């Protein structure tokens, strides 16, 4: 399968890339790892007239600490995240999620920026970013702005990115030491998108849940922040009744599509189970 024709641009700087995005407008797509975009182009579901390859912009790649935040450049790959000592120490949930994305070859090229900016409800990182309370940095010719992950997604493949803007980094508040985390993903096979998945980041105090955020993957047109479900477990010791209340609250906001992964009822059912498993595993890891 051969993609449609396009003009290829390889800017050497972010300023040049942003200028190209602004000039070429909606006819242009940014190319990072390409592992969502190129398959879509091969199927002719995407036919951009211009591709702006971000691969030559060193400033977009890398992981750095900025006070109590970790800033991950958009073209940092899943493989980079798995190899990073600072990520292993401060944000282990990113490694747990990365390991469940696609397969080794895809993880060498697939980027965090692509994963969160693409807007595909099947992408894994958006729900994790919601659970972490991350912001996305968006840059255009008019300047830079930050948008919370929880406010970024508007519909399948529709996001807060304006034409001409690039997502350049994710900015993640470092969770407290001793936090608990889990990403529970049900999938049919290695490499598949989630049938249902839940991300949990929580803290415990005196055997009870002190803070908790829950994100859901592929259970609606957009990734979901399950606020009511998190509220249902805060202050509890995660007894069975609380877990079931949390699952029910999460299931109430799920609107999964019917596809090869199952019916909406089935996916909602297993979605509730993913929430319970993620909560239990996160709590067991917390100290």
């Amino acid at each position, binding site marked *: 399968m051969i993609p449609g024709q396009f003009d290829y641009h390889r800017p050497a700087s972010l300023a040049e890339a942003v200028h190209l995005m602004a000039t070429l407008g909606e006819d242009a797509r940014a190319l990072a790892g390409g592992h969502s975009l190129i398959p879509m182009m*091969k199927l002719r579901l995407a036919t951009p007239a211009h591709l702006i390859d971000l691969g030559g912009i060193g400033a977009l790649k890398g992981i750095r600490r900025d006070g109590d935040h970790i800033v991950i450049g958009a073209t940092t790959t899943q493989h980079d995240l798995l190899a990073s000592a600072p990520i292993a120490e401060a944000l282990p949930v990113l490694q747990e999620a990365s390991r469940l994305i696609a397969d*080794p*070859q895809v993880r060498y090229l697939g980027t965090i920026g692509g994963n969160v900016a693409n807007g595909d409800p099947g992408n894994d990182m958006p729900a994790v970013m919601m659970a972490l309370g991350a912001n996305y940095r968006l840059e255009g010719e008019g300047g830079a702005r930050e948008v919370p992950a929880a406010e970024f997604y508007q519909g399948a493949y529709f996001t807060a990115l304006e034409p001409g803007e690039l997502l350049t980094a994710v900015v993640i508040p470092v969770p407290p030491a001793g936090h608990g985390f889990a990403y529970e993903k049900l999938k049919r096979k290695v490499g598949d998108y989630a049938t249902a998945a839940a991300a949990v980041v929580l803290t415990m105090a005196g055997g009870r849940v002190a803070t908790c955020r829950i994100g859901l993957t592929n259970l609606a047109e957009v990734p979901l922040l399950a606020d009511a479900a998190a509220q249902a477990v805060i202050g509890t010791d995660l007894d069975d009744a609380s877990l079931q209340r949390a699952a029910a609250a999460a299931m109430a906001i799920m609107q999964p599509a019917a596809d090869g992964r199952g019916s909406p009822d089935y996916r909602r059912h297993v979605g509730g189970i993913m929430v319970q498993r993620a909560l239990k595993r996160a709590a067991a890891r917390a100290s």
Partner: protein
Amino acid sequence: MAKTHVTMTVNGAQVEGLVEPRTLLVHFIRENLQMTGTHIGCDTTHCGACTVDLNGMSVKSCTVFAVQAEGAEITTIEGMANADGTLSALQEGFRMMHGLQCGYCTPGMIVRAHRLLQENPSPTEEDIRAGIAGNLCRCTGYQNIVKAIQYAAAKQNGVEFKEAAE
């Protein structure tokens, strides 16, 4: 459509060519360079038959544009044998352990396993299975592919390979 000039190093040799931007790396390798050891299987980023080593990464060359590989160091299955033409430890392992039946997935398997052993010279069986999770074989059930990689790891580490009892 205007063509773009690309240069890269493939199996140690400088190569160049004129390609459309939409030309996939696997087509450049197979059609421009006439190196047909790299196979096209699913053409949808799943099967791993088209795996090549690109700047120290295993990548599926059906999902990379040739223009993205400008200046890259690439190794394909044709570059896997030892310099004197004898079989590499991995190639020998696939032969000795009967690690293939039809052979279609084998170039991708060997190129991927090469990078896996570079990164993890003494992998557990679980490491190997996770490491080749992006390569599909529809013949063997993977048992003998895993053994072939274990054989190569043992040989590269200078220890005797002992097949696990089944």
